[in-house]
C-alpha cells in the first residue's frame, strides 16, 4: 500500500491590498448580509516574482454566526507584463482561536506565459485582524 504525501505549507508570497469603501447590498432573504469590497491596488511579491494588484474584489456574506464568507479575486500584473488571476474562498472571523482572514487560493494564468506555474499549485493564505499583509503559502 503506497501512501500519499503528507502536505506542508511553504512560504510563497506576500500580498498587500488597497481596498475601497464597501458596497453594501443588505440582508438578503436567503441568508446573511451581502456586500462587496473593491480592491483598487496593492503589491504582490515572493518566489522571485513582483507584481501590482490591478483589479479585484472581495465579495462578502456576513452570517448570523459572526463568520464572514469571503470570495476573493485579485488580478496581478507582474514586472514582465504577465497577468494572473488569484482567486479563492475563505472566512473572516472576529472571535475564536484565530481572528482575521483565511483563504484558500488558486491561480489562473496564460498556459504559455511566464507565470503559468502558479496555476499548477494550491495555496492558503492568512491575514490576522491587526495585520497589513496577506501571507500566502503553497501546499506542498
Amino acid at each position, binding site marked *: 500500500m503506497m501512501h500519499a504525501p503528507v502536505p506542508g505549507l511553504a512560504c510563497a508570497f506576500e500580498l498587500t491590498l488597497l481596498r475601497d469603501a464597501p458596497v453594501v447590498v443588505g440582508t438578503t432573504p436567503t441568508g446573511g448580509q451581502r456586500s462587496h469590497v473593491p480592491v483598487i491596488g496593492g503589491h504582490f511579491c515572493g518566489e522571485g516574482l513582483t507584481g501590482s494588484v490591478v483589479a479585484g474584489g472581495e465579495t462578502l456574506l456576513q452570517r448570523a454566526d459572526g463568520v464572514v464568507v469571503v470570495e476573493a479575486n485579485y488580478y496581478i500584473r507582474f514586472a514582465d507584463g504577465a497577468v494572473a488571476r488569484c482567486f479563492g*474562498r475563505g472566512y473572516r472571523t472576529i472571535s475564536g482561536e484565530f481572528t482575521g482572514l483565511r483563504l484558500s487560493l*488558486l491561480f489562473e494564468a496564460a498556459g504559455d506565459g511566464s507565470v503559468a506555474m502558479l496555476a499548477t499549485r494550491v495555496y492558503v493564505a492568512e491575514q490576522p485582524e491587526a495585520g497589513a499583509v496577506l501571507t500566502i503559502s503553497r501546499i506542498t
Partner: protein
Amino acid sequence: MRLEFALEMRIELGPRVHIPVAADYTRGAVLIEAGSFCGPGLSGRVVRGSGGDFPLVQPDGGGRFESQYLLRTDDGAHILKRSTGVRQAPPDVVRALLAGEQVDPARYYMRMVPMFEAPAGPYDWLNRTIFVGVGQREPTGSVFRYWKLV
C-alpha cells in the same frame, strides 16, 4: 499557520463522462457511488446519489476539480461538501492513472481545498475552517486525507 489532521475519506467512483463544451473547454463528470469518512470527532458515510466530481479536464490530463456531495455523520447530521483543487502530473503518470493502474501518489500533485456547510452544533467548526486535502487515486476509487488550517 500550520496543518492538523482532520479526516480521511474513501470513495468509490462510477463511470466518468466528458462534455466537450468547446475546443478548449471539457467538463468531466463522475458520480460517487459510495464512501465513508473518519477523523477526530467526525465519522460517517457519503450520501449515495448526492453528487460527484465535475472537473475541468485539460488535454494533458491535468485539470481542476470541482466536486459537490453530501456527507451524513454517524449521529445523523447532513453536511454539504464542496471542493476545488488541482491535479498536476507528468504525461506518463496521467496515462497510468487514466488506465486505472496503481500509481505511487508521490508521483502526482493532487490537492484540494474543500468548504463545508454543517448544521449549528458540534460540527459548526467546519463552517469557519480552511482545509487542505491530498488525493490518492486507487484502481477502484480514491482516498482523500484532509488537514485543517490552525
